[in-house]
């Protein structure tokens, strides 16, 4: 069912990881990504892996869930591994026709896989532990200074949060329309590509019409609730940095710093 697709999956909780300010989390994730690319050897990767595993542990999110989240990228990871394995020059260990496996190839392949996995797990931990609305708020606040150069940060954030609000509603609506057209004998499962594409018309037209109607009504309702863009707005939720945030920043800075230093020595 369509409902099984979850965008920006979020597992509510009250752990220290959940409580870290979204702005801090966003900044740390960016720093982590940079650090990942500066890491060079097994020691620095091990340190980063330990860092991310601790985050998973503290967050209380089942490791099974984290693994499940990797499923869609298995192919990319495998592809990268194979590519690096066979195409890195070095001391040949084994060869079959045009395929050569080198010692450097194995090392690079392993590190590449670890790097991609850490990258994906690390960024997913952000969405797993931060509600979409907090993420949007965090982004809006962090990018706030860009308003000065006329980047419509508030508008983008508002659009994003409205999209998040209406995704479940529209998914439900799509399911209803599909059922209704099936009840009129619509066939979505057979025929060639063109026939199948054409079979989508009875779903897409009503869905678009409905989405436009909703957008129209929502716009009026927002105006009635005195929305006029970013003029003189305040926020109910005030983000203030607390002990958890400083703790997270300190630990992360130490880890990232260590990794960068180790990287310079090629460890």
């Amino acid at each position: 069912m369509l409902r099984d697709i979850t965008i920006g999956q979020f597992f509510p909780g009250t752990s220290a990881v959940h409580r870290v300010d979204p702005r801090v989390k966003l900044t740390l994730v960016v720093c982590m990504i940079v650090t990942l690319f500066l890491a060079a050897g097994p020691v620095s990767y091990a340190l980063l892996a330990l860092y991310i595993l601790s985050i998973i542990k503290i967050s209380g999110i089942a490791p099974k869930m984290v693994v499940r989240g990797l499923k869609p990228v298995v192919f990319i990871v495998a592809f990268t591994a194979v590519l690096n394995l066979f195409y890195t020059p070095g001391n040949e260990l084994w060869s079959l026709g045009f395929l050569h496996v080198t010692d450097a190839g194995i090392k690079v392949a392993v590190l590449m896989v670890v790097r991609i996995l850490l990258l994906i797990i690390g960024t997913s931990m952000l969405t797993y532990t931060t509600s979409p609305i907090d993420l949007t708020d965090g982004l809006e606040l962090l990018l706030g200074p860009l308003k000065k150069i006329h980047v419509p940060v508030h508008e983008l954030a508002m659009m994003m949060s409205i999209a998040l609000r209406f995704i479940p509603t529209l998914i439900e609506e799509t399911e209803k329309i599909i059922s209704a057209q099936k009840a009129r004998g619509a066939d979505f499962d057979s025929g060639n590509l063109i026939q199948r594409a054409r079979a989508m018309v009875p779903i897409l037209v009503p869905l678009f019409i409905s989405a436009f109607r909703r957008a129209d009504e929502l716009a009026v309702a927002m105006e009635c609730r005195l929305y006029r863009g970013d003029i003189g707005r305040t926020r109910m939720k005030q983000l203030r940095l607390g002990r958890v945030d400083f703790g997270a920043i300190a630990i992360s800075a130490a880890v990232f710093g260590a990794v960068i230093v180790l990287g310079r020595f090629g460890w």
Partner: protein
Amino acid sequence: MNHSEIIKTEGLTYAYPSEDGTPKLALNGIDLSIARGAFVAVLGHNGSGKSTLAGHFNGIRLPSGGKVWIDGMDTADPDKLYEVRKTCAMVFQNPDNQIVSTIVEEDVAFALENLGVPPAEIRRRVDDALKAVDMYEFRRHAPHKLSGGQKQRVAIAGVIAMMPRCVVFDEPTAMLDPAGRREVMRVIRELNRRFGITVVLITHHMDEAVQAGRVVVMHAGRVLMDGTPREIFTQVDTLREARLTVPQTIEVLFDLNNQTGSDLPIDALSVSECADTLEKYLKR
């Protein structure tokens, strides 16, 4: 303008532009005044002009002719529009399409954030509003997981957090099941009685209109009838002409009178009033 009135219209007309160029009159000379603290139901069939009228009460629509004043402010004055909307808020039919946020309390805070209210005060008013509609325990929930009645109560909390003097409800129960309708009507009555908010309820449900202090019946863009529920619902023939029905408690007495030639009072708005009349008649 009289100070005891919160809404006043004078010769209000509204024409929709139509395809063939001849404008279609949706409202045709409405003179109406609604007192502060009143609970007024506006009744009419689909297309009678009742929703178009409601749209004029907070400046969603502007008159083609005539005037609308909200608490003394002309809605056609662009400088006053913001104040008009703050004074007279609006709740719509489809609760899904008026909830902005993915968290209940964030949604209720929306209008206050737009107004630039200080955060601590927003918090307090949001909590008060959610308590007033009995949704406080759901404050951290996602709106799309709530029932229709609950969603509509969240939408109501979102407008009363603005502390408007008047709330216009545009068919707030049309998409709800009976349980949801009862919840929402209870909240609407409370707003009027406990908080003294003026309520204008657009509806085509007779049982909801009966709960108001005053009923205005719209037909073909005009005010057809205007009076207390008792005065309105006893005019069975006129109501039927306006494509409306009457409560069964009145219908049974009306039919009985017609068939037996008796002259029972037909103004029974509740089951017990109807039973009173019938009991007297049968035991006579």
